[in-house]
């Protein structure tokens, strides 16, 4: 189907096909025919397929004689067609010279693949629109591995999100590490409340030593969590308030005046002991 390229002046912009020898044109044709990873096709100005290379057949499933003459909207999932995406793509390509997109495309058998698509407007020397070149790459594998990494990261985050440890009879510890977003604080509230009920702990230490920064929203979430735990009848001590966090909280005007806060976990633990009226002392009989 290489003859469909009409190797006349400006047929392949930039390739300078018209100035080159027939052998070179043949090589360009062979390149397009033989290239493995790039489906390279040409469309007429209205979007009907003019040429189709072997990589396109491998990627999308149609043979050249099945697809040439068909509109390229065949490659798009129904939701894109409803949005008029194909017309939009051609419009942008003809106005701006090129259009690039990443998204789902459909194979002959109906299966989908994640594609990077570049549509280039092909204009002759008079600037007349002759058609479009469309280069498609299959990025499904890359997208899947990205998805997988993202999912794993999410899982790790969820696992590490809210560990609740009982450090003493009646004292729970929640060492928070990493950024607190709404989702995580929501989780924190659920887990902490359940654990407080389950263990009937009068004191919970919420340690934010490992939280890099606090903004208004995060602080609000923490305040809500603390209020909820108090409603159950337990006391919360916020520990690990570093100088930078203390400064931020005050500058943001966040009022934590009725929350017990301590700079270190050990100070918080001491407070917890005080609240439980426990006393840690050296063993009196140590000297024996």
């Amino acid at each position, binding site marked *: 189907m290489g003859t469909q390229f009409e190797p006349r002046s400006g047929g392949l912009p930039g390739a300078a096909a018209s100035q080159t020898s027939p052998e070179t044109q043949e090589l360009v044709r062979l390149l397009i025919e033989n290239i493995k990873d790039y489906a390279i096709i040409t469309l007429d100005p209205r979007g009907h397929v003019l040429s189709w290379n072997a990589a396109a057949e491998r990627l999308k499933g149609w043979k050249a004689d099945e697809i040439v003459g068909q509109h390229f909207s065949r490659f798009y999932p129904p939701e894109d067609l409803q949005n008029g995406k194909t017309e939009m793509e051609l419009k942008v390509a003809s106005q701006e010279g090129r259009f690039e997109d990443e998204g789902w495309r459909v194979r002959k058998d109906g299966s989908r693949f994640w594609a990077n698509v570049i549509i280039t407007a092909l204009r002759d020397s008079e600037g007349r629109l002759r058609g479009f070149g469309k280069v498609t790459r299959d990025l499904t594998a890359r997208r899947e591995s990205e998805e997988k990494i993202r999912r794993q990261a999410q899982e790790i985050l969820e696992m590490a999100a809210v560990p609740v440890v009982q450090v003493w009879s009646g004292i729970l510890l929640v060492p928070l590490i990493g950024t607190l977003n709404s989702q995580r604080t929501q989780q924190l509230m659920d887990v902490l409340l359940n654990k407080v009920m389950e263990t009937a702990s009068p004191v919970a230490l919420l340690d934010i030593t490992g939280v890099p920064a606090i903004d208004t929203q995060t602080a609000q979430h923490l305040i809500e969590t603390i209020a909820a735990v108090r409603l159950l009848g337990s006391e919360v001590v916020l520990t690990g*308030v*570093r*100088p930078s*966090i*203390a*400064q931020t*909280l*005050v*500058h943001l005007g966040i009022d*934590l*005046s*009725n929350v*017990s*806060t*301590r*700079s*270190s976990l*050990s*100070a*918080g633990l001491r*407070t917890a002991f005080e609240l439980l009226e426990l006393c840690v002392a050296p063993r009196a009989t140590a000297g024996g």
Partner: protein
Amino acid sequence: MSDRNSISIIIVRKTLMVTVPSDPDDATVSALQDEVLAAMQRVDAKGVVLDIGSVETLDSFFARTVAETASMVALMGGRTVVVGMRPSVAVTATQIGITLGGIETALSVERALDLLDRPVTGRSRR
């Protein structure tokens, strides 16, 4: 700045004794805040006694920073007592409407230490 060197923080009985230089500029006041908070973290202090006995003029920046620092110290689990404000300074401060928020004050360092030894009245740690 050279004034930074004049900030003195002495740790006595888990309390930070902070002496404010006589005529602190804004940079010194900011540095003071940083150093007090850093010391709070380092020694896990129960409170801060801020001696402003040598301060002759109290501007609004200084007052605001002191009030803020006290709130920050509170967040880190400590109490702040301001000590030794000169009568003339107190008069000017009230006349131009400067307050130190809800900071506790004491007449002398001795009394400030007594104050810090007493448990907080109620739960208002402002």
